């Protein structure tokens, strides 16, 4: 069970999630403080930390569009959030998977802040409204990276196989 703590509109860019002026900050331990830095209410809510691990952000289409900055994924990862979006931009989706941020593609999701969700492999159930929404499975090619716990351990494994 997970609670929706933030609901967002369509076309949330990586400039929204992690503004350009903080791009010199790269360490995953330091990026979360600047998450949604241009939207004070969201930034304060996240930094306030008054929510359990695994809480959800629900977003409309094209979440993470724009810049390839990986800090957008690492900042969200720092709060151990689930990101449930109607669709996501290719680069953001890949960055999220590479860093082990939990993302769910759910093209028809309807949920409001405060709703309780049950996120399953092939569907998301909004327990508050009683409605069920199908998810789109992530590209199969990416599953191996998820299973390895992210791209760093995955590539490390591949590297060791090459030299062996």
């Amino acid at each position, binding site marked *: 069970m997970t609670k929706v703590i933030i609901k967002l509109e369509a*076309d949330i*860019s990586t*400039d*929204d999630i992690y*503004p*350009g*002026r903080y*791009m*010199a*900050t*790269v*360490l995953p331990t330091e990026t979360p403080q600047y998450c949604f830095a*241009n*939207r004070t209410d969201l930034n304060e809510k996240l930094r306030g930390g008054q929510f359990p691990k695994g809480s959800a952000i629900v977003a409309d*289409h*094209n979440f993470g*569009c*724009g*810049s*390839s*900055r*990986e*800090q957008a*994924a690492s900042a969200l990862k720092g709060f151990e959030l689930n990101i449930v979006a109607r*669709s996501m*931009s*290719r*680069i953001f989706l*890949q*960055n999220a998977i*590479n*860093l082990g941020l939990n993302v769910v593609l759910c093209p028809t999701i309807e949920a409001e802040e405060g709703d309780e969700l049950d996120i399953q492999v092939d569907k998301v159930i909004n327990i508050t409204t009683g409605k069920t929404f199908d998810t789109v499975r992530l*590209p*199969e*090619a*990416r599953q*191996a*990276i998820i299973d390895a716990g*992210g*791209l*760093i351990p*995955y*590539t*490390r494994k*591949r*590297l*060791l196989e*090459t*030299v062996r």
Partner: protein
Amino acid sequence: MGMTVVEKILARAAGRASVKAGDVLEPKVDLAMSHENAALVINQFEAIHEGTGIEAKPWAPDRIAIIFDHRVPAESPKTATNQKKIRTFVEKHGISKFHDIRGDVGGICHQILPEYGYVRPGYVVVGTDSHTTSHGALGAFSFGMGATEMASVWTLGYAVNIEVPATIKVVVSGEFADMVGPKDLILHLIGVLTAQGANFRVLEFHGETIRKMTTSGRLAICNMSVEAGATSGIVPADGETMRYLREEAGVTDAITPVTPDNDAVYERVVEIDVSALGPQIACPHTVDNVKNIAEVAGKRVQQIVIGSCTNGRLDDLAVAAGILRGRKVAEGTRMLVFPASGKIFGQAMDKGYIQDFMKAGAVVMNSGCGPCLGVHEGALGDDEVALSTTNRNFKGRMGNPKSEVYLCSPAVAAASAITGVITDPRKA
């Protein structure tokens, strides 16, 4: 079954006879580009090697390009220290395609790569920048990725688990009207496709208008393909590509153009006739919020920006200088000009464009990304409006979420600088 350009390129790079959209493969990378975010790539690259007993050495230092452009000269000690760390790495591993902060050979990554002949038709190019789509202008398959994925490429020499994207064929016909050009075409196309209309897809450009377009114009349209979500834009290499690489980039070795098969399979075909197209404006706060100039003409602007990897090239500066020559930037409006590279800056000086800008009251700044991403130089005040030849108008893009950014061509930007309001260059 026939193949698209990108399918052909990926088949070669993965050592297969043929591939089709949806196949998963691991293409060898011909060129791997980063800018200041190489600092994060280096961290991740070292993390991959941690505990393996294997020394962290890039697979092929001559296939890595690193260009400082996003924050030049450094705006903070943090950036300067990142840049210093990258220089040390470059030196240690002998990365030769390195462009430091310099007035002669420096510039924006998406200009430096073509300008120095680093990109060739048929290449697989990856970059830690979303506008890496630009290099499809030279007939390469070129796409953006995050820093960790780049660290993986530096380690293995190929990109892991890449899904062959479906291709949308864009056929462009007709002749541009006066004061209308590639930027108006790509803004119009993004409006038609929407900001996510080409997500996970390639835009392959065809038609007489594209064939007649210079590489500079092709770079602008491939550059902004990502604003429709595209993995890459691509113009199949032709005579113009060869001319550019030989005459402008000074390439002397063999070049092998890749063209699509006649029976290539496209997801869909989009046809555009540009004959009747007028100047286009992308309005706040999404790039697909595109309007004909008549709908926004008269809007007051406080800052004009000409530059970026989209429109900071010599022909862009020529158009703008031609409009501004002998005239003045309006009171209450400031104009900033950022040539895309040191080489372009030099050429613009020789042609007198820089003098035209400065005499008109514009501020000409060093080559680089400048205010495009809102890090330093040219920040906007609350409620101010910028009109810019850059490629993104997201809320806060130029550093201030309380400001607005409109996107346009160099001709519109220059005409509007004179009046201080959004102005149709055909009426200026």
